[in-house]
């Protein structure tokens, strides 16, 4: 069989697209091209697929198509027991899994009226904030890689590895943590881990100015992000965006501040905002957030010694524990925004319904409107500035 016949056999049906492309094409203008960006695309950070209608290099319309990584977390919630569902939370968002851990565990604790020991709260804050740093570093490296700068990701992963070395001691894993338990955390922080964190904070604090000099002040980066992807506060409102995306548009909203959970009301930190509403604003907010996270970490590590109680409550729920009937909604701030978990229980061993509200999902839903009329190259910049984690979008 020669290569020509191979080409011919597939040529006829190769222009058909699939259901979504055909559905999308119905609204197309004449002489435009329908182009798939993703699922296998390095700058969509996973398997996001965006169908674009392009006129030359300009995007006339864009429609994200989701579900290429739909992993049935909500269905699993109805099948697994209250405890068995915790590992799922480590896999919803691989960037900041501890926030999801916390959202789920917090919702169940709220439902059952469980009080968590003070020390456990401190450990949760420390590990969660370390994880936030790792998440922002991952975003930073990957975003700059999308924009064409390769070196920063090497620096970012260098620092990230230092964080993972610390985090794998109390959580037992490098990436998909599921160390939170209903009523506390799995493992206590030992002396060495605390010392590692204390050593890490000044080192990382020195790196931040270097990142600023190396990347943030770079004219090429500035040209790629400034004025790109403008999202007015109205857009934020209508799409329900949260986290750095909302703060980059001048909305001072952080769940840790506006709806303080756990012990976040004890810490002194600022909620950085930028009024530029563009990708540069979101970039700067995240960079500033890293500095603020270090501040929280410092205070939390200092407070850990004085905290009372153990790492988990006495008489913590057993594996076949039954939650009381009722419902609870719990929101936490993850690296991407507001994570919400709505648990509904009928009083049995398994949850009746679990709804996971993910921030990336709402942030991404605004993309179709924001990307209208921009260059394809800028669409990459916009997608990156939203900091997408696809498993979290698809769940």
């Amino acid at each position, binding site marked *: 069989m020669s290569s020509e016949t191979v080409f011919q056999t597939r040529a006829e049906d190769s222009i058909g697209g699939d259901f979504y492309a055909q559905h999308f094409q119905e609204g197309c203008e004449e002489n435009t091209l329908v182009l798939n960006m993703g699922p296998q695309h390095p700058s969509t950070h996973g398997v996001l697929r965006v169908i674009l209608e392009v006129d030359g290099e300009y995007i006339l319309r864009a429609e994200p198509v989701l579900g290429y990584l739909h992993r049935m977390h909500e269905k699993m919630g109805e099948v697994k027991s209250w405890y068995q569902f915790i590992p799922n939370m480590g896999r919803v968002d691989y960037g900041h899994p501890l926030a999801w851990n916390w959202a789920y565990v917090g919702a169940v604790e709220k439902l059952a009226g469980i009080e968590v020991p003070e020390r456990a709260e401190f450990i949760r804050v420390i590990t969660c904030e370390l994880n936030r740093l790792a998440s922002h570093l991952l975003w930073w490296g990957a975003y700059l890689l999308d924009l064409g700068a390769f070196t920063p990701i090497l620096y970012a992963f260098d620092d990230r590895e230092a964080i993972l070395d610390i985090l794998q001691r109390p959580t037992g894993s490098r990436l998909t943590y599921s160390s939170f338990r209903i009523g506390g955390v799995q493992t206590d922080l030992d002396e060495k881990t605390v010392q590692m964190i204390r050593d890490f904070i000044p080192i990382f604090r020195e790196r931040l100015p270097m990142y600023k000099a190396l990347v943030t002040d770079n004219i090429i980066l500035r040209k790629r992000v400034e004025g790109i992807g403008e999202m007015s506060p109205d857009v934020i409102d209508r799409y329900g965006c949260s986290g750095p995306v909302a703060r980059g548009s001048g909305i001072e909203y952080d769940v840790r501040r*506006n709806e303080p959970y756990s012990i976040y009301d004890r810490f002194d930190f600022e909620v950085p905002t930028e009024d530029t509403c563009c990708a540069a604003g979101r970039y700067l907010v995240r960079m500033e957030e890293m500095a603020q996270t270090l501040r929280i970490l410092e205070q939390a590590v200092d407070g850990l010694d004085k905290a009372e109680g153990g790492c988990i409550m006495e008489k913590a729920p057993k594996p076949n524990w039954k939650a009381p009937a*009722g419902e609870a909604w719990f929101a936490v701030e993850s690296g991407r925004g507001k994570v919400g978990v709505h648990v509904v229980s009928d009083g049995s061993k398994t949850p009746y*319904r679990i709804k996971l*509200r993910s921030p990336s999902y709402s942030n991404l839903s605004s993309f179709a409107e924001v990307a209208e009329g921009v260059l394809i190259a800028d669409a990459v910049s916009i997608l990156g500035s939203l900091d997408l984690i696809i498993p979290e979008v698809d769940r």
Partner: protein
Amino acid sequence: MTVFEHFRTLCIAKGNRASSGVDWNVFLERDYIVDAAELLKYSGFHLESVHAIDGAEGMLINYLFDHFTQGERICLRVLLNHEDVTVDSIAGIFQGAEWHERETYDFHGVMFTNNPNMVNLLLPAESEVHPLVKAPKKRVALAELLSCGEIESQAEGFDLLNQKTEEAAQ
């Protein structure tokens, strides 16, 4: 709860943020959801989530709204019969609702009329399976599932939550 002072609601219940995370639970008739969403839009609320709970009495659609500055979480709830799970879309007011509604269609088979793009979002295209719909035997009465808090006002003939209050009284 001044937003819904002059609005036709079935029931308004004051929840407790510390115990259930929602400040106000507002039950609405099916036809009023778009007007209610518009009201909330002008009061500066943003949409957090739209999702359904499959209960014995029917499909309960929850619309969660939050406010960036006031910090008040409102849950609008619409009960739909299992025979006719159709409700108006609020995607015209909160564009972010489009995806949430499509997801609800995927999981629970709830049809949202006037949604601009009513195709499968997460499941494969034209998939007819709605995985989170429960078998009729496994459905539990909503009164047992919900914890709405104190009932402030209630329309006549609305007795979805009454069973719960009786239980609590006993």
